[in-house]
């Protein structure tokens, strides 16, 4: 999976977790939680969804890497290159 696809995937997952949020103007380089109402349990939902869908395990120490869409894409691309 390429970076752009991963960004789209993350938006899709967040939309599922936060169905009331409008994500159309989400900026890729700004902290996601500064742009929408997303709390720590919602974030854990995102981590769980990656685990369930693709078997991607994100260690707790690396959670910060997923704070923006760009950061998520950069961190996940090597882990999801064969998906």
């Amino acid at each position: 999976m390429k970076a752009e696809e991963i960004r789209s995937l993350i938006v899709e997952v967040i939309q599922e977790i936060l169905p009331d949020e409008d994500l159309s103007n989400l900026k890729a380089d700004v902290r996601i939680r500064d742009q929408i109402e997303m709390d720590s349990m919602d974030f854990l939902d995102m981590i769980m969804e990656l685990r369930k869908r693709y078997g991607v395990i994100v260690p707790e120490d690396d959670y910060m890497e997923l704070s923006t869409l760009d950061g998520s894409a950069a961190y996940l691309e090597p882990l999801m290159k064969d998906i």
Partner: protein
Amino acid sequence: MNAEGRIVITGIGLTAPNGNNLAEFRQNLLAGESGVGRIEAHYMGEVIAGVCDFDPLKYQKKKELRRGTRAGSVAIYCANEAIADSKLDLATFDKSRIGIYLGITEHGNVETEHEVYNIKQYDYNVDFWSHHHNPRTVANSPAGEVTLNMGITGPHYTLGAACAAGNIGIIQGLQMLLLGEVDLALAGGISETPHTFGVFAAFKNEGALASHPDPQKASRPFDRDRNGIVVSEGGCICVVERLSDALRRGAKIYCEIVGYAINSDATDFILPNPERQVECMNLALKKAGLSASDIDIINTHATATIEGDKAECQAIREVFGDNSNAYINNTKSYIGHAMGAAGALELAGNLPSFEDHIVHQTINLDNLDPECAFKNLVINEPKKVDKADYILNNSFGMLGINSVLIVKRFEG
């Protein structure tokens, strides 16, 4: 007693398998309309159950629905409906003085079963167990979800009291008002039980799960052909307040709660004890300062088990005599057993009798068990009555917990 020490019900929010507000529920009770159908349960396939079709998005955002529980959704719907019905302006009310007291039969089974079902596909790897499990399954969860939704900051908790819980939620609200702990109680009971297969499987293996080719005829209290319980969900939350406050704000008063009692059988895990049921009814009558002959309507707990129905009938005979003039009915024949909601829902379904002087019937009673026969058992047709001033509502539960509420028609 002065108006400070008198407690009244001034709002009702409910959802039942056959109605999502009191008017609809009552209309269907008088029309003999059951709300029971069939659903799919994990591992069991199709089961007979009573499920509600209220719109949860009326009061919840999609995110809240996803985050919370079915029990929470039922409670949030009923609490908001109750406040709306009471015409209380929540925006100007001190929300730290509102208490939420919800009776439950059980809570957390649905979520736990769901998680176990879910991790099966991951070979029981608990890394896939939801981080939401704990907040969803703590016992106060359904009441807590109401506080989050409505911004209520007074006390909230549930009362685990098996199938006696609906009455007990209301009793707790009354007691907290009398103690001066709160100025308004949202009190009643809720159930999400049909979403747990375990309760169906246990009743089935106990020989106490109803079966019938027509699900709407499966719940048959007092009928010779009864064969067990129909498991249902539902909720009923009442706005309970001091008469003085209700009068001050010109509230519509559904009834005054004049008597109540809770006791324990201390004899068996499952089997009821009519002797203790007698004591519970007598205690409630004594608290109300009434004699049995004052009661106009007895709403029975009967769940359509052979032993349970007989025990309650024996107890009613002991308290009211063989020739009691009180009219006797049963609401579970329409909606099945709404577990923690049953007591409160069944009381609510009978409150309109104070105005319309009609007692709703017991349906599915085609072949009366002689051991359950009463002169004034209201069978299959509603009954117009001359007097409807007092209703006695029974709710009993496993581990031998009994609850009785007596309410009175309010005359301003």
